[in-house]
């Protein structure tokens, strides 16, 4: 795995005007039917640097490539409407120095991003500014340096900064998705762990497909992953370091362990252990290897997920007779059922903001992805389909990614498994492009924090 560390060298200046009257802002709490028109001027690259980057990265104009990364990100958020470049009147280098705001407001841009990329001491140095076109003001300016190979990440970091400045919340663009890549007939699917950037680029396979692998999940604090592997036909939870490729079995259980997730501090793994037809929830401390049994009930207890403060666990149990969602304290006490709607509930996962639990619901032959408050109130279904499950939160808690399967005919034709994302508002449902069929997505935290 390539070095993903990003060296932020200089934080040039970050201007947040105190007299912010009339300054643009984007409300992300509602479904946004009027995305903000924004102009992303191609980043300027002077001629010496352009040649260097052409040699190094085989890119005609790296400035244009970085700005298209930004544009795609902004567009996929559903909150912004990046304007067509053909309509831009000002040249990138001049716009970056001092935009002629009349030109930009003429094409209805409300915000403008300009910038410059340089090749400096074998590094890529980028400087960018965000402008409020209507107020005629600079809103933000930032510069940083990284290795040239990281150029896509430069686009993601710019997007994160712009998103944060305009919405007031952290972005989710400099992130990755780990998932299960699927190929072959339904009766004999070959599954591999795969990882890609949030926008579908830089796909890498982490396993070869020799054994069945399922449900990978990121450690929220670093680049470790936990997942279920059928290595040697023994289904066990594994821990994988995606930097080094080193992996190990988690714990020494005499049977199947599954449904793993990390605790919010990344120090524990919580999972199910199945024995004699009964699945209970356990944790293992990754430092001292101490295993604790958290639930003790003759029903199926699975799909555990910690609250972000680590004090509570939500999980799936059929102790009432059917699959429902429960919450308990992290020591296993005070178990309380929270799902009471019609149908079956599964895969609860606590929002990184702490206030909501996302879930899968099965009712009358349809599958829904929904959210409810942590006490079970305020249930809201975001999307209905033939089959979909396993939501995972973006690190800012605004977007859910999940997988959806299509119905097959009696020969198994017509089947597919794809990743989809949807905003917490229920708007902006999107197919997340993957090279193969895909399932079990898990969203990483921001890489550059």
């Amino acid at each position, binding site marked *: 795995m390539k070095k993903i560390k990003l060296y932020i060298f200089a934080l040039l200046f970050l201007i947040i005007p105190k007299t912010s009257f009339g300054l643009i802002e984007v409300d992300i709490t509602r479904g946004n039917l009027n995305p903000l028109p924004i102009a992303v001027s191609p980043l300027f690259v002077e001629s010496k640097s352009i040649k260097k980057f052409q040699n190094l990265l085989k890119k005609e104009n790296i400035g244009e490539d970085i700005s298209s990364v930004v544009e795609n990100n902004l567009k996929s958020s559903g909150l912004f409407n990046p304007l067509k470049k053909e309509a831009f009147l000002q040249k990138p280098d001049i716009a970056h120095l001092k935009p002629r705001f009349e030109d930009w407001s003429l094409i209805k841009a409300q915000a403008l991003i300009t910038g410059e990329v340089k090749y400096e001491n074998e590094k890529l140095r980028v400087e960018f500014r965000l402008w409020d076109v209507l107020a005629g003001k600079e809103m933000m300016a930032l510069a940083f340096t990284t290795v040239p190979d990281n150029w896509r990440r430069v686009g993601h970091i710019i997007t994160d900064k712009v998103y944060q400045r305009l919405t007031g919340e952290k972005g989710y663009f400099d992130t990755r998705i780990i998932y299960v890549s699927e190929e072959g007939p339904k009766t004999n699917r070959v599954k591999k762990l795969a990882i890609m950037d949030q926008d579908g680029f830089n796909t890498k396979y982490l396993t070869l497909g020799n054994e069945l692998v399922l449900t990978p999940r990121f450690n929220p604090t670093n680049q470790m992953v936990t997942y279920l592997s059928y290595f040697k036909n023994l289904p066990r939870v594994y821990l994988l370091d995606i930097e080094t490729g080193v992996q190990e079995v988690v714990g020494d259980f005499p049977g199947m362990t599954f449904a793993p997730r990390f605790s919010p501090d990344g120090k524990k793994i919580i999972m199910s252990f199945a024995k004699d*037809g009964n*699945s209970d929830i356990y944790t293992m401390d990754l430092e001292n290897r101490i295993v604790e049994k958290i639930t003790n009930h003759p029903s199926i207890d699975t799909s555990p997920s910690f609250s972000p403060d680590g004090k509570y666990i939500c999980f799936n149990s059929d102790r009432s007779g059917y699959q429902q969602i429960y919450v308990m304290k992290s020591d296993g006490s005070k178990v309380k059922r929270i799902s009471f709607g019609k149908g079956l509930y599964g895969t609860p996962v606590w929002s990184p903001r702490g206030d909501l639990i996302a879930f899968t619901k099965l009712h009358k032959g349809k599958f829904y992805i929904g959210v409810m408050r942590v006490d079970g109130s305020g249930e809201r279904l975001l999307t209905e389909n033939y089959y979909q499950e396993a939501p995972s939160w973006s690190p800012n808690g605004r977007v859910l990614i999940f997988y959806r399967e299509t119905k097959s005919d009696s020969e198994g034709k017509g089947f597919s498994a794809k990743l989809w994302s949807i905003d917490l508002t229920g708007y902006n449902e999107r197919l997340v492009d993957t090279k193969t069929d895909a399932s079990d997505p898990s969203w990483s935290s921001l890489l550059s924090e």
Partner: protein
Amino acid sequence: MKLNKIFKNILFVVLAGIFLSACATKKVSNQMQGDVYTGKDTVEYLASGVPDRVFFATNESVLTTASRETLRKQAAWLRKNSKVNVVLEGHADERGTREYNLALGERRANAAKDYLMTYGISGNRISVISYGKERPVDSGSNPLAWSKNRRSVTVKAN
């Protein structure tokens, strides 16, 4: 006259349709009782007259009368072939969440294991593995296909 012929053809088509759909319904009801598969399409045999698998209702791990009969045959055969060990593979259909289905498959295989043990087969000879919904035998998305996939299969381990 022409019209008459057309009418006759239509009638024939309609009758054929009724006949075919009757067949289809009959076929399903022959192969399922409630939603438990009772057919033999996918069944293999450990030995002559000893079916290798039992089927379950949706979300259930209760053994049906037919399943218990199959498992008694397996137990009898295992008693005669005392050197054979088996793996019980538990499966679920595709209409459930992946993690719950892994637990459900394990519960189904253990229901079969418990029954074999009550008929004198040592637990040491039986291991259990759940595949959840990962290894369907029928790749269709219809109730009959799902009923074939909700199963516990006894496989020789040596």
